[in-house]
């Protein structure tokens, strides 16, 4: 039975040594469990043979978290069923297995529960629910709907002892730095040191821990009523100063109208638009969109959600009026409404990270040592203009091409560095380090969305004090004494 589940690693499984970070790993075995009982069997076997485990979902992570550095690959893509959807006095929920892809969850909800949706929507829909929860991935609508964690009610996981644990929201709360576990043990969490809420829920410590504290096998996700109307609007600008002006004015105005709200505000710079144009040739969904005129130096994508179109129109009208002060050509703005139609604009937005990964594939052909070089720093205490200009200037000084896209709210911008050779890659790495150090000094959040994994581990550790790292190691030890889960992620 065990031997059937666990396969020795051979060349057939080569693709499982990589994720979207383009980092290469090593492994001695691989398994594709179809039930949580099979996961328990495999984990126990690994404990018995002191073999480390790297957990994989959809392998869409861009920090190498799912890339094995040794040992066994536990790929959860076949643990992919929707278990149930139900209603309680606390609302509507869907219970799923961890390997379910986000696209499949969307399909299921469209079919069974059309009036509800799960707001976290990281743009890559081949990501799995387990992967999303493990990295606490966020979508473009976080601006309005809030953190992914809010939409997770319960997780079932297998810990480093091969034991199944159920963590339900509200059941175990940290009190004065301590949390009693159902096993009777105590978890010490120095919330002040780790900059966490004083009364953090245990489930929120698990979520975003990149599989270090346990393997998520099931999750109960909280759904909310789907807005009846959605609009997507893409504003294009010919001058960078005008983008800055528009964003600044936009973020200082409240646009809510009755139940209608601004749900997402996203920025794509000129370099990103150019890369999307290149990607267009190969992606059917993008080919259906008109070309963006080369005169444009950037785009701001805004999504409006509401229950009545009239309310959305009032907001759209106000934003159009604002944009008219900054746009040379006000007929260039794309506007679509309805879930079906705005998929076109979302596909365009999604093409931003996708086109970056495509560009990386090309450079990697020239030099295989080059891997993903990108940041996801959130810098709330700088203006949007200051931040974008700082990235552009410093990259220019070092002679590195960059592309910027991301969330305008909270200045949570993704900067992709696009080295053309290994020397530039090394220079780029130093540049990222400078940015991270600068962000930490200025009170920014150095790793705000994509996780840490293996690629950003050194920088992550650099951003933390020895005490902070010590506390994290303690938490890791409580859940995984032997350190067999996801070694090499976040901590050493």
């Amino acid at each position, binding site marked *: 039975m065990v031997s059937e589940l666990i396969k020795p690693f051979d060349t057939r499984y080569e693709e499982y040594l990589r994720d979207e970070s383009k980092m290469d790993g090593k492994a001695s075995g691989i398994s594709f469990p179809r039930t949580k009982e099979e996961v328990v069997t495999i984990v126990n076997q690994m404990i018995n043979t002191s073999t480390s485990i790297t957990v994989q979902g959809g392998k869409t992570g861009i920090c190498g978290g799912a890339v094995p550095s040794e040992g066994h690959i536990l790929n959860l893509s076949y643990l992919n069923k929707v278990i149930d959807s139900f209603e309680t006095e606390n609302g509507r929920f869907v219970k799923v297995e961890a390997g379910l892809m986000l696209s499949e969850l969307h*399909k299921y909800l*469209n*079919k069974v529960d*059309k009036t509800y949706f799960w707001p976290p929507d990281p743009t890559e829909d081949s990501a799995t629910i387990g992967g999303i929860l493990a990295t606490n991935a966020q979508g473009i609508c976080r601006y309005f709907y809030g953190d992914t964690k809010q939409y997770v009610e319960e997780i079932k996981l297998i810990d480093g002892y091969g034991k199944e644990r159920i963590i339900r929201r509200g059941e175990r709360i940290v009190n004065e730095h301590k949390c009693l576990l159902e096993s009777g043990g105590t978890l010490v969490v120095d919330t002040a040191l780790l900059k966490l809420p004083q009364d953090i829920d245990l489930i929120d410590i698990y979520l975003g821990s990149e599989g270090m504290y346990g393997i998520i096998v099931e999750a109960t996700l909280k759904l909310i009523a789907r807005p009846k109307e959605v609009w997507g*609007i893409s504003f294009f600008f010919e001058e960078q100063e005008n983008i800055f002006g528009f964003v600044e004015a936009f973020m200082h105005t409240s646009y809510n109208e009755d139940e209608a709200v601004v749900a997402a505000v996203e920025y794509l710079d000129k370099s990103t638009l150019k890369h999307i144009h290149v990607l267009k040739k190969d992606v059917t969904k993008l*080919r*259906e*969109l*008109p*070309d963006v005129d080369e005169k444009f130096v950037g785009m701001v994508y805004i999504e409006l959600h509401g229950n009545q179109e009239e309310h959305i*129109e009032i907001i*759209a*009208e106000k934003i*159009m009026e604002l944009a008219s002060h900054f746009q040379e050509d*006000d*007929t*260039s*703005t*794309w*506007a*679509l*409404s*309805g*879930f*079906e*139609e705005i998929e*076109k*604009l979302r596909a365009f937005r999604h093409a931003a990270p996708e086109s970056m990964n495509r560009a990386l594939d090309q450079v990697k052909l020239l030099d295989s040592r080059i891997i993903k070089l990108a940041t996801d720093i959130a810098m709330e205490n700088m203006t949007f203009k200051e931040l974008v200009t700082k990235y552009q200037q410093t990259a220019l000084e070092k002679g590195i091409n960059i592309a910027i896209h991301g969330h305008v709210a909270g200045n949570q911008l993704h900067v992709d560095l696009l080295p053309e050779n290994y020397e530039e890659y090394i220079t780029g790495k130093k540049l990222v380090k400078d940015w991270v150090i600068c962000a930490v000094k200025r009170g920014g959040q150095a790793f705000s969305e994509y996780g840490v994994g293996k690629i950003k581990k050194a920088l992550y550790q650099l951003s933390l004090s020895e005490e902070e790292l010590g506390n994290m190691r303690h938490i890791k030890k409580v859940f995984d004494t032997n350190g067999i889960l996801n070694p090499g992620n976040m901590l050493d």
Partner: protein
Amino acid sequence: MKIAICIKQVPGSNELTMDQEKGILQREDGRVKMNPYDLVAIETALQIKEKYKEVVITSFSMGPKRAREVILSSYAMGVDQGVLITDPKFIGSDVYATALTLSKGISLNEEFDIVICGRQTTDGDTGQVGPAIAEHLGIPHIYGVIAIDKIEEKHIFLSQQIENKKISLRVKMPCVLVISKEAYIPRLPSLKLKLEAKKKKIKIMSFEDLNDSDIRKFGLEGSPTQVEKIYFPNKSKKETLLSGNANVIVDAIIERLKGEKLI
């Protein structure tokens, strides 16, 4: 110059599920959208308008009241005016009755120089509405139009693609053009026009307005054909295994491609 375009509202979801027992495709999702092929028809008309003076574009749609949404969408792309031909009496129309109803609506409005249709719809898939409108109107139609090259006083010059042949044509107007999906990439609606669209009027025509009291020509009764079943065609996969050394295989591939007239 006056251009009419025919547009249709179709089910929004591309996700089709199969009723295994009945072998019928189902679209249970209530969302709707503009037939994507018609977006190309609109784009063609708009490109003509951008190039030539005094062009007025009118969109026509036959469908339920809700189909006014596609007329509004056409306004948001830049269409000047729209006509919705709607009446419960038209329910159940097949290709023939749809084309008749549209042609009546078109001819009763203006004398159009060009009528533009999309190649097919995503829900009906017959691809015959355009040619049938031309028949009802008694004017020529050109199928597979991939470009409008030039327009002179009485003639339109266009490129047509049939199989792998490209043909240049000079056609006397009025005529019906059936546009290929590959002809143009449709623009997206602009915010400004989209917001203005709601304020624009849509002309509504019902059975009474069609100047034809013979109800037997319209709707289900006027439809000589009926869709009994829509199903996925059986996929027949023919595989040929080429063997031999690299040179032999390369020669065989080249022969094949030549045989298929691909090179």
